[in-house]
């Protein structure tokens, strides 16, 4: 038996009262690619952050053992010194520097007090050649695509003589071609004895590259398989694990006429011809909750932002609200007037003016309705704001409390209140329960029931399958900017939804059939 290069023994980590990791055992062998799978919130990121020195030794339970010796990783520098390189989803490159400069950033060879540039470029070329990475050391990182940048990060780790690579969803934003290139390089590294911990949602990738895989669920290691012996359904079953409780019952009212109609939509990013969303087509009726799921990078947020007129360039297709066609170049103001409203997933960035009061934020989108001879009717404003404040049960000292001082759940309620005060027909909710506690979640589900009972249509984007399945009347899974499958309420299992999100139909397993269910 080969002794592992990295071993975790009974790792546990708590955030307040919540256990993010519990008794996780795990080992990484030399020259092995080991995949880590699990749903969002299963504890993958926490584990990486422990190994990466972001959660330092002493803040977690259990032991990390490197080369047979217990290692106390207290900082990012300790991780590097131990020969571990972590490549996070947000790449840490300096855009304005060349590839070579990035590779040697912070450890530039020096001669006579000055940077030895020939050594920098020669060293970079040597590393790139050695591992057959196709990059020009003199290219500025700014000019590289996301796939190449990922390779720069890998090369940077290799230039630092790392023996263990940890990659967090490295392919989430890559094209198929770039994914193949990255996987090939990882195979090369494996043959040279570099070990790799590979985190990904994409099971096909995992099966094509990993030697072993470990499934985390609710912070526990539920299974470690040899890749040769595992199957996709087996892994999905372990990832999902439990049956869905009817914790948050959806009261489905009778659906009325179609409110939001999306026809044959194709959207490209603002300054890019590469299509991001294609063949998107769906209706949302009065009283209906349409759930939209999909993996990270599937295009869910982009879809909502585009419908609201806040992102992307329409290549073709139409969007209409209550029979009224929305201009392809509509801006959020026009969308609001048409009866559409967006509650963004990033409430700090797109939702709130955190420096201002609750009242200021609540009425911000609906001031037009408060007009009284050019001035704001502050009595009416206050009445409407305080009604909303009370009905959403916002916990704050009052309308004059600064929004930035509120908890996440209450900030979310303020954003929702602002949206509801515009008296919308269709509400686009992007991850409305992210980062809010269970109590606030239940309140939100209740509110969704009341809104649909009154005839609103809701589009709910969520990463939590459980939430999607319990709150949606219909579920649409996005895969890579396209519809990977649509399911009526109660029709699909979590396994089927995950499969659709990964671009695999459960009926047939080939990728070619991915559109058939929607046509």
């Amino acid at each position, binding site marked *: 038996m080969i002794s592992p290069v990295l071993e975790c023994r009974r790792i546990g980590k708590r955030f307040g009262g919540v256990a993010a990791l519990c008794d996780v055992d795990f080992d990484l062998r030399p020259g092995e690619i080991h995949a880590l799978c699990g749903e969002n919130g299963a504890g993958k990121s926490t584990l990486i952050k422990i190994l990466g020195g972001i959660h330092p030794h002493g803040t977690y339970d259990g032991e990390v053992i490197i080369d047979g010796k217990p290692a106390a990783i207290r900082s990012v520098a300790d991780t590097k010194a131990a020969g571990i390189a972590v490549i996070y989803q947000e790449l840490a490159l300096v855009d304005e520097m060349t590839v070579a400069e990035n590779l040697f950033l912070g450890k530039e060879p020096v001669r006579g007090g000055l940077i030895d540039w020939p050594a920098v470029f020669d060293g970079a070329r040597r590393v790139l050649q050695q591992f057959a990475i196709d990059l020009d050391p003199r290219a500025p990182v700014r000019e590289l695509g996301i796939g190449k940048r990922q390779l720069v990060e890998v090369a940077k780790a290799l230039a630092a003589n790392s023996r263990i690579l940890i990659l967090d969803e490295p392919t989430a934003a890559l094209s198929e071609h770039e994914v193949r290139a990255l996987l090939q390089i990882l195979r090369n590294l494996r043959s040279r004895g570099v070990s790799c911990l590979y985190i990904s949602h994409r099971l096909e990738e995992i099966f094509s590259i990993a030697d072993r895989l470990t499934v985390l669920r609710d912070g526990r290691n539920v299974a470690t398989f040899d890749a040769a012996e595992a199957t996709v359904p087996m892994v999905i079953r372990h990832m999902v694990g439990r049956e869905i409780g009817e914790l948050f019952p959806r009261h489905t009212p009778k659906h009325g006429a179609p409110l939001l109609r999306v026809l044959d939509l194709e959207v490209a990013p603002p300054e890019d011809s590469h299509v991001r969303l294609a063949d998107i087509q769906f209706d949302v009726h009065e009283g209906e909750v349409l759930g939209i799921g999909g993996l990270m990078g599937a295009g869910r947020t982009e879809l909502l932002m585009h419908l609201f007129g806040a992102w992307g360039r329409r290549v073709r297709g139409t969007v209409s609200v209550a029979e009224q066609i929305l201009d392809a170049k509509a801006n959020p103001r026009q969308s609001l007037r048409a009866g559409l409203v967006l509650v963004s997933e990033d409430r700090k960035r797109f939702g709130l*003016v955190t420096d201002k009061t609750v009242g200021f934020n609540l009425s*911000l989108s609906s001031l037009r309705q408060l007009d009284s001879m050019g001035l704001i009717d502050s009595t009416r404003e206050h009445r409407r704001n305080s009604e909303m404040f009370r009905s959403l049960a916002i916990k704050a000292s009052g309308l004059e409390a600064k929004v930035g001082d509120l908890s996440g759940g209450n900030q979310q309620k303020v954003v929702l209140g602002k949206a509801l005060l515009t*008296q919308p027909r269709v509400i686009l909710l992007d991850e409305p329960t992210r980062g809010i506690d269970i109590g606030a979640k239940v309140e939100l589900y209740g509110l969704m029931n009341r809104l649909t009972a009154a005839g609103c249509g809701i589009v709910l984007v969520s990463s939590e399958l459980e939430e999607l399945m319990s709150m949606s009347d219909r579920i649409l899974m996005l895969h890579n900017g396209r519809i990977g499958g649509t399911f009526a309420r109660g029709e699909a299992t979590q396994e089927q939804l995950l499969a659709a999100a990964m671009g695999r139909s459960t009926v047939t397993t080939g990728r070619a059939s991915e559109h058939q269910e929607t046509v």
Partner: protein
Amino acid sequence: MTPTPLINAAPAENAGAGEYSPAPLAETTRGIGLRDFSMLIALLLIWGFFGTVAPTFLSARNLSNLAVELSITAVLSLGMLLIIVCGQIDLSIGSGVGLFGGLTAVLMFRHDWPAPAAMAVSLVAAVLVWAAMGALIIRQRIPSFIVTLAGLLVFKGLHWKVISNATIPLTVGSAQNAMSRLTTWFLPKPLAFVLAGLVIVGLTLAALAGRRQRKAFQFPLEPREILFSRLFVTAQLLLLFVLVCNQYRGVPLSVMLLGATALIIGVLLKHTRFGRYLYAVGGNREAALISGIDVSRVVIGAFAIMGALVAVGGFLQTAYAGASTTTIGQLMELDAIAACVIGGASLSGGRGTVTGVLFGSLIMASLLNGLTLMAVSPEVKFIARGVVLALAVWMDVRLNKRAAD
């Protein structure tokens, strides 16, 4: 369809949401923050210092001059407040003051236009030019720092060209006109008292109405004593001001102009959609956009108003100097920015009040006036202005940090 009936009654725990006290009271008691105190102390120190070293500083004649100088600085600073609140900056207003003052003077002196027509043309031109700068900033995404820096140079060049590097007087002989009267006409002395009385009554009624509304909203109220003592002190100062001015020639017309400007900007910021949107755009531009605000229109609007006030500032400053010369308006943009920052506006946008800016302007104007009286050399004046500007921004950073902690 309104959303309110959709939602159940409030849970019991939140029923008395309006009664939270006394912690929020301290935060919401308006008008007496640390900042206001530090401003007041700075002002007293400045006045005390100049009063000692240059006894004429506190003479009726000089205070009357100071009132005119304050009006000019404050009118420009109030415009700058709008620009800063929506997260922009304007470096070109000093050159603009020179240009539009000069243009008006040339139209009157060289082309014999009547003063009102010349002023109207300049005002419209300034509004258009500033709106164009706003459009350039917001639609072409050129930082306002750059656009207005270019404006600074271009307007200065145009100013010198328009007046042909000469001195263009506003009046022929001693014949007064609408423009020169801006700084030479004084309110008849009894009328000044009547007007001051009306202002005091107006302020009191407004304060009481505001208090009544806050009470109706169940917002925390400041103690009645503080409200009344603040009103009392304001009234005393106003009467004192009229008394002092009347000892010389009376209350200058420019002060009336400042009062009107402050009232308009104050109402605009507090009670209109445009004002709310300015704060929202400066506080979080992306959130403003998603909230359905037409960010371009708001920023262009702010610049258009700035343009109008630049023209007014140009009329006042040129009239005060008696003629348009190449140095009119020089560095006034920096005084305006300093006044805003001293008055509590945040250079990163989203924060600032009219009262604060009026205070800040008074500090800046007093400083310049006092230094001139002391007959210090221009180089020392530059250094003093620079130090005050740096101090003001340092204070801004410090107090913002403390507020964030």
